[in-house]
């Protein structure tokens, strides 16, 4: 109950009983002491200036920037490692290069955080019941090789690896929630949107990749074999819309 009226009115010339006083006052206070509801606040009463101010923190360590923002209606969480932001490099220098010839990786999903300086590019936060909606942005290059075949008297120079591809996935608490298609050889920046319902719980979000590549064939081939998966930047940001 949120609206009330005097239950035991005092009548002129009648005796004032303590019970009447107690009941009337208790009822009035009882409403304020934890029973105020929508009947006490008109619709459209919550204006923007009634919201408490948001809190924002941003920390850069291990060449990775983590941003947390807590507002009245929504939270944002972000983690980024990018060549032009955290490494002070230009757009052409990778922040990490995974040698697909020599590094350990599988044809299944590989965690980006397992490779070199990308080890802090994951989000780990306390979500509030509602919806998580966000984007993972990855700037990478997995390209064709150019190789030399030599037979007895003839030398062929060809591009090699037209069937190589890379795929990226966003994992929320180890569950795949969004993925790219197979991306054939090139440098590309992918914006991978995702949306998942969430309870009030711990949430961890990370990027994972899988790829197809192969070793050069032909004998002898020239130079040192390389199969780089170059990472120029990774950024995961998420909006937690609270109920």
């Amino acid at each position, binding site marked *: 109950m949120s609206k009330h009226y005097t239950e035991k009115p005092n009548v002129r010339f009648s005796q004032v009983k303590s019970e009447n006083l107690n009941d009337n006052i208790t009822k009035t206070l009882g409403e304020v002491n934890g029973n105020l509801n929508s009947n006490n606040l008109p619709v459209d009463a919550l204006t*923007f200036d009634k919201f408490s*101010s948001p809190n924002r923190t941003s920390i850069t360590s291990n060449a990775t920037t983590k941003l947390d923002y807590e507002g009245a209606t929504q939270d944002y969480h972000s983690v980024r490692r990018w060549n032009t932001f955290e490494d002070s490099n230009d757009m052409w220098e990778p922040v990490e290069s995974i040698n697909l010839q020599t590094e350990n990786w599988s044809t299944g999903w590989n965690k980006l955080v397992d490779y070199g300086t990308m080890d802090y590019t994951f989000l780990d936060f306390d979500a509030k019941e509602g919806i998580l909606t966000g984007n993972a942005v990855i700037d990478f290059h997995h390209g064709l090789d150019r190789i030399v075949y030599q037979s007895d008297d003839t030398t062929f120079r060809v591009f090699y690896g037209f069937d190589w591809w890379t795929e990226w996935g966003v994992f929320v608490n180890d569950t795949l929630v969004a993925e790219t298609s197979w991306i054939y050889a090139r440098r590309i920046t992918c914006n991978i949107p995702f949306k998942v319902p969430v309870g009030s719980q711990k949430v961890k979000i990370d990027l994972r990749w899988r790829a197809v590549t192969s070793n050069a064939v032909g004998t002898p081939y020239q130079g040192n074999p390389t199969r780089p998966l170059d990472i120029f930047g990774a950024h995961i940001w998420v909006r937690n819309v609270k109920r």
Partner: protein
Amino acid sequence: MGQIDFTKFREGDTPDATGLNAPYDDLAAVSIEKENTKPNWATRAHFDDTGEKANELFFYDYDGVSAFQTTNTNYQTITNAGNPSRITFPAGTSMDGAHIIRAGASGIIGDIICNTDGDGDGTQDSYNYFSFRLLVTYNVGGGNLTDVIAECGYSYTRRSRLTNDSTGLDSALWWRNFSFSGLWAVPNNNTQIISIELQAKVGPNGGSGNQLDVTRNNINAVLVRN
């Protein structure tokens, strides 16, 4: 103070003015806090939907076919049939130091021209690349300042940054999309947000004149205040 205490009168007590007025005086002075309200009472109808918003969305869209072309190795604002690819915020658009801007852009990469994609030995990495960025212009008093919200890169061809052989040129990749996004932390209270624009440049290419070509493009920005 959220809760109001009250000592009940007993049979035979003679209430005085102080005792009778006390609960009402306390009620007048109380600060309503979360323990004063019932659970699950607020509805969306209690939020005022006029005036300043927790989120404000702005959008720029060019859906024509006029191409923006550049061989410039420094960032240039993309222009669409003579008009810049830019969100210009209404005068007086102000944000505080705890706020953030979330922005993204996408578009179509058209008939690019690639005369060199590098030699694949790591010394000419940049030849094969071009990039985009979102640039915010703001004012905290004094002259306008700029900052980068997000940046992204693409290659002209499929060639790897490192290849076994340093000869040859792969064919260019035409007609594909670009897309990227980012967050920007507003630096100060009363920061005036002027504009956000989409810019592009090509990598140093040894004078070979690689050219970027962009047609349709758009920018979205959300001013996040609470």
